[in-house]
Every structure is written in structure tokens, then in C-alpha cells.
């Protein structure tokens, strides 16, 4: 069995999910740069039904031959079915509900899948000033479903975010409906240790899968809230040689 990094592990697991979603008809992905873009482009190469890549820079249906280094990479525009303005991509495409899957990450994730990418500490005198919201609040609000890809640690996976940049399930079940949000919210949290999903009854994130060789204690120790595990926690499949080869060729391109 081939060696792989934790990044590769997260990317492969995300790509598998995207492949399954595309096969089921949820193929339109609103992708940022980094792990989500890599996972979506990997899925395009691994599966017969390809995800449709939509970038907030206005590229619709991009088919980059190499991984973009920035969301505004020229390659994205040149390989797109259509390029539209930034006001249009957010209004006519994301807000209108044409996106099946959005991706989010951040410095903090809380147990209801709310995310903080704004500040650590208080807003007025922050300990650490982070880049800010970007497209996250409206991706969280309007995407059909959201996938979170994030390294797991007790510092990052917290009981409550210092700042709520984008909403998952707010303070629990029913908040999304109360806020009149049209999108489905975070459905999958893929970390370097595990896979979490919202509990159907409470919307609290619970562990549904462990990566090969990861123990429950490791996950518990890396989670800032008292994390629960479903009864039959699965173990995710090892990344295959084919998945890893394809990913590495993609990254080398």
C-alpha cells in the first residue's frame, strides 16, 4: 500500500464524495482554491460523470489542465464554458440556487458547523486578524449542500466560534429554517482524522467515519467539544494507488 500525506487523504476522500454526488446528479461545485479545487479536479479525472467547476471569479464549467494557483488563474477563464462578471456569478448563479455543492473551511469550526474565518479573539481587538468572509456567508446560505475540508485539532474544532463568519446550523436544528436559508447547509466535514456529518435530530456534528489507523481517542482529543460517534462508525478505504497516482500527476502538471 502506497504512502500518502494527510492532505492526500482528505483530497481523495473529498473526491470520492464528489464523484458519488455527481453520479447522483449533484454535479455543480462552487470551488475555491486549495484542497476543494484539487479534490474537484481529481474527481473530474477519476469518475465518468464529472463535477462542473464554478469559480467565484466568474468561471463556469472550467476544465483546467493543471491545478490553478489562484482563483483568478488565466487557465480557469480560458477553459470555461462561460466567463461572467463577479456580480453575476454571485447573483444569477450562486444566489439563484444553481450550485449543488459549496466548499468551506476556516480557522474555527464549531459543533453546529458554523465557521469562523474572520478573527480569533474579540472583533474590536483581535488576537489574530484573519482574511475575512469572502464568498463564505452566501455559499453557506445558498449552496444546495456544503462540504467542509479542514485539518482537525482541539484549537480549530471548538464548542463555539469566536466569530460566526458563515452559518452551518446556527445554535441547532431549525435555525436554518428560521433564517429562511434556501441552501441545505454543511452535510460532510472531511478532516485528516475522520469524516463527520450532522446528526439528523440535533444537527450536531458526529463522527461517521474514521480514516485507516485513526483511533476514537485521537479524534476525541482533536475535538474541542464532547464529540459523539454513531453506532457503526465506518473506516474509510485507503487511498488506492490509482487515486494517488492520478492526484500526483494532476499536481505535477
Amino acid at each position: 500500500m502506497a504512502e500518502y500525506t494527510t492532505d492526500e487523504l482528505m483530497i481523495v476522500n473529498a473526491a470520492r464524495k464528489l464523484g458519488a454526488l455527481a453520479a447522483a446528479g449533484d454535479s455543480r461545485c462552487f470551488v475555491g482554491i486549495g484542497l476543494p479545487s484539487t479534490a474537484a479536479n481529481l474527481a473530474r479525472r477519476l469518475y465518468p460523470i464529472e463535477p462542473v467547476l464554478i469559480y467565484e471569479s466568474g468561471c463556469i464549467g472550467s476544465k483546467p489542465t493543471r491545478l490553478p494557483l489562484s482563483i483568478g488563474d488565466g487557465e480557469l477563464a480560458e477553459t470555461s464554458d462561460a466567463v461572467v462578471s463577479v456580480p453575476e456569478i454571485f447573483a444569477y448563479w450562486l444566489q439563484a440556487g444553481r450550485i449543488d455543492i459549496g466548499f468551506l473551511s476556516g480557522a474555527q469550526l464549531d459543533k453546529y458547523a458554523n465557521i469562523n474565518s474572520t478573527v480569533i479573539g474579540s472583533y474590536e481587538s483581535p488576537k489574530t486578524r484573519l482574511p475575512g468572509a469572502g464568498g463564505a456567508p452566501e455559499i453557506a446560505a445558498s449552496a444546495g449542500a456544503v462540504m467542509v475540508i479542514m485539518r482537525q485539532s482541539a484549537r480549530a474544532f471548538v464548542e463555539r466560534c469566536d466569530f460566526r463568519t458563515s452559518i452551518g446550523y446556527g445554535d441547532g436544528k431549525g435555525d436554518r429554517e428560521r433564517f429562511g436559508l434556501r441552501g441545505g447547509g454543511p452535510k460532510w466535514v472531511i478532516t485528516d482524522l475522520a469524516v463527520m456529518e450532522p446528526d439528523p435530530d440535533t444537527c450536531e456534528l458526529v463522527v461517521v467515519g474514521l480514516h485507516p489507523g485513526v483511533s476514537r481517542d485521537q479524534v476525541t482529543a482533536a475535538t474541542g467539544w464532547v464529540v459523539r460517534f454513531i453506532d457503526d462508525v465506518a473506516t474509510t478505504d485507503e487511498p488506492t494507488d490509482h487515486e494517488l497516482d492520478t492526484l500526483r500527476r494532476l499536481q505535477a502538471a
Partner: protein
Amino acid sequence: MVISLREAVAEHVHDGDMLALEGFTHLIPHAAGHELIRQGRRNLTLVRMTPDMVYDQLIGSGCVTKLTFSWGGNPGVGSLQRFRDAVENQWPHRLEIEEHSHAGMATRYAAGAAGLPFGMLRGYIGTDLAKHTTTIKTVECPFTGELLAAVPALNPDVGIIHAQRSDRHGNVQIWGLLGVQKEAVLASKRSIVTVEEIVDELPPVPGAIVLPSWVVSAVCHVPGGAHPSYALDFSVRDNSFYKAWDAISKDRDAFTTWVDKHITSSADFAEYRQSVGI
């Protein structure tokens, strides 16, 4: 109409102005930002969806008292060090911030371009942004009763962008990623456009838009004026320059030295390019 960047900044940009130097990774007007530093503009309110290196340079140089933005980082690299130092430690002085989301900023530019006092979107709901940003309110749909987020129009004093080219009359042609370039110009009271080339006739280009000369205050011929950002079909993004900026900007003295050596000591962008070797 077609004048030097020095003349354009001297004539159209004043201390205390609200400026939007826009560019969504593509076509970021770095050269124009440098000229603002050279001419020592102060008390500026800077507006931008994605403030990056050039805003870091302006903030660190003490030109800026307020920043209105939605994402302030060094794409693919990490933090904007001067921006962080200003917010976390008030260096070189306090920086007021007005924080929005991308969709909110795009809506504000579009409202400004359309001559509307505000714009609306399905956004912000359930986030803490509205608690800290006074320019986020709600509006009720008079037909359905739904509550939507409302944000005020952006109408900067000067909109500044880089573009691929213009003709000699000052009609500006832009293609590739369009970002909010058109809205930034149309929403602003005055506008400055730096271009890669000036031609007799604008040849049609797939995906291109044209801003007629009569909505542009000044066109300036500044080849490479977006560097380390790029202009599709003229240059590529200089990712290593963005990476190198992290180290330069982390340390206050290193930053100041770099700005003095390369920007302030250069008469114009052409000299700056020689100075940094690009």
C-alpha cells in the same frame, strides 16, 4: 484623456478620497497604487473586494485610514502582514475597517453603477458580520414579506483599474476575468484606467467588454502595470513575487526599506520595474 499616470493621480486623486483599486486577481492596478504612495496621498478610504499586496503597501505606507473589504489575504500564501499589523497593533496608525462578504460588495458596486441608493441580496443572515458592520441592514419584500439583506451603494470618488488596452480616444477594452472592473468604474465619480497598450482601433476580442471613453476620466499607458497580478494575453501572474512579499512585509523595517528603495525612490513604474528586476 490619455495622460501620464503621474498627471492622472495628481489631477484626480485627493487626500481623504474614497478609492476603489479593483481587480479580482486579474488586472490589479499595482502601478497606480505605487503612484499614490509616491505622491504621498493621505487619509484615504480604500474599497476593494480582495485587498492584496498593493493595499498592504498603501496601508503600511500610512496612506489609509479606512478599509472597506470582504477578503484581505495574500491568495495562496497567507496573511496580509501590513493589514494585520494595522488592525492588530495600529501600525503605522489605527485602521478603521468596514467588513462585508464578496456577494455584498459586488451588490454594492452594482447598486452604485446603477444609480440606486442600495442593493439587496440573500446574504449575511445568521452571521456575526451584521453585528459589527453598520452598513448591513434588512429590507422587506413588499410582495412576499421576505426579509433580505440590504447594503448601501458604493460610489467611490475615484475608481482605478488596469485593462488590456484602449484606443486613442480612450475607449477601454477588457477581457478574461472581468471581476467588478466595469462596476468599479461606473460606480465612481471619476476613474483612472492603466492599460498595457494604446491602439488606433480596438480589434474585437471574444469575451471582451468595452468602456466608452466618456465614462473614463483618464487613460494611462503603463505596460505591466498590474504586476505581480496579470493581464490576460499580455502577462502571467507572478506567483513567486506574491510568495516573496510575505517575508518582505512581515517585518516593519524590511517593509519600509523595500518601499523606500523600490517605490519611493523610483520616478515611475518603469523605474520600479528595473529596480525590482521584473
